[in-house]
């Protein structure tokens, strides 16, 4: 079966400061179809990042199953691309070398991996930045590199952990529009973590609302594409959805 399947996922850890066990994720089940864009939205501490870290294999689940394309997940792997809030670019590698990192780890030769990297840099609108170092770029540009790097490895699923939270509001809107464009062009499977209700709706086919480690609600987003902020911000259907999800998040 293609796609991601999560069954009865829970995460409990020991908090040394509280001196007690804390349940970050409680019995979450959900599925994401191949080529689907799903947003997980909720306030800080709702467990959304913990869920993403378990899917990525960075932290082990306490109980439950995560199955990707029929394989049970244990530990990180190149089948799941991750885009980090902190960008997590390698400062000692140029933009091109960052994007070529995944193909390099797969054993692609220099010409081959640079061809792949340039293709994805062009997709992310970064054709001219190939030879720069990450610290020479703005935050928005750095995260474009982060997205290109994850996509260049051709993962089965893209996991995005509040990727646009640390860029300014205008850049964030541009990045969101670019992401929808890239998603339409390539149709990767995406799980997108955010606490921003409008961002969650704007990007996704389906929004999942989390609260206190539990899955609270699922909301379908039947808005047409391509989506651009200038028209969507006035759109009645968008406003209704936004109000509904916001209510769910705040009541949870």
């Amino acid at each position, binding site marked *: 079966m293609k796609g991601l399947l999560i069954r009865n996922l829970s995460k409990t850890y020991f908090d040394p400061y509280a001196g007690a066990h804390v349940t970050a994720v409680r019995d979450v089940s959900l599925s994401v179809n191949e080529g689907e864009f799903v947003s997980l939205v909720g306030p800080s501490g709702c467990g959304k990042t913990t869920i993403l870290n378990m899917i990525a294999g960075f932290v082990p689940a306490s109980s439950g199953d995560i199955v990707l394309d029929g394989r049970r997940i244990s530990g990180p792997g190149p089948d799941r691309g*991750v885009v*980090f809030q902190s960008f997590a670019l*390698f400062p000692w590698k140029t933009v091109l070398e960052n994007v070529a990192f995944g193909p390099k780890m797969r054993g692609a030769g220099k010409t081959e991996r640079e061809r792949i990297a340039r293709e994805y840099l062009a997709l992310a609108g970064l054709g001219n930045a190939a030879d720069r170092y990450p610290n020479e770029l703005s935050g928005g540009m750095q995260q474009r590199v982060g997205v290109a790097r994850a996509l260049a490895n051709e993962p089965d699923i893209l996991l995005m952990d509040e990727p646009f939270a640390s860029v300014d509001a205008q850049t964030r809107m541009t990045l969101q529009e670019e992401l929808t464009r890239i998603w339409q062009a390539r149709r990767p499977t995406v799980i997108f973590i955010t606490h921003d209700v409008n961002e969650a709706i704007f990007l996704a086919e389906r929004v999942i609302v989390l609260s206190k480690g539990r899955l609270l609600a699922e909301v379908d987003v039947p808005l047409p594409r391509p989506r651009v902020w200038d028209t969507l911000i006035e759109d009645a259907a968008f406003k209704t959805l936004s109000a509904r999800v916001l209510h769910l998040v705040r009541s949870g």
Partner: protein
Amino acid sequence: MTTLLRLWSFYARRTTRWPGVAAAIPFIALIASWAIVAESAIFPRAFFPGPLDVVRSFGSLVYKGILPDYLEDSVVRLAVGAAAGTALGIPLGLWLGMSPRAYSALWPVLLFFQAIGDIAWLPILLIWFGFGLATMTFVIVYTVLFPVVLNTVLGVRSVPIDLHRAALSLGASRARILWEVVVPGALPNIVTGLRNGLGYGWRALIAAEIIVGTSGIGFLMFDARRAGSVVEILLGMIILGLLWSVVDGWVLVPIERATGQRWGLITQ
């Protein structure tokens, strides 16, 4: 007042264009005041010689071939000791930085031996190895080793966890992560360790040469004391300072420039 202002602006403009000039000017003032005190004959000449006497002594020691030999001995000892200390220290630091088990087992031992300073080893080393190269090499390697190990551990631990995670999710093996993430991430700290290690090692070498003494700049200075030659002692001190400037400007600064500064890991 306007003349002073004009002089200052001239100085400021020149020194921005040629930083070397800025570095030289305080020394010119220092040497000038030294010369004035020496020439005023407040102290006896043999007790407080002037800059020219030191230059003359430099010329004569170079002519006799003593100074080039001693300089070479000191520099080679430092280079060999530093190379060995670094070659041991970096792998040890990487290992301690990455393995929590190795860290908890060996860190206290490391701190214990760090506290026994280089020169504190000399009494037992002189009994074991005698007055020779082995003793001096041990002291330098020992001195260089600790700053390199401690800073490498610090560097490894300062690599953000997200960089490890990014590499893992891009399919990197443990060995590739060591080479592609841990080593470059720790490199600015490793260079700092090397800088400190060379600095301490240089001082330890001079101390060792004074005590073990058969040749070298430290021996030159201590031998000059026996002969009561203040001018040669001063020459030795000046050479120590100059040599360090050369090591700093030609070895350390270029390495720092090529690594951390370019990557934005060190802000200047």
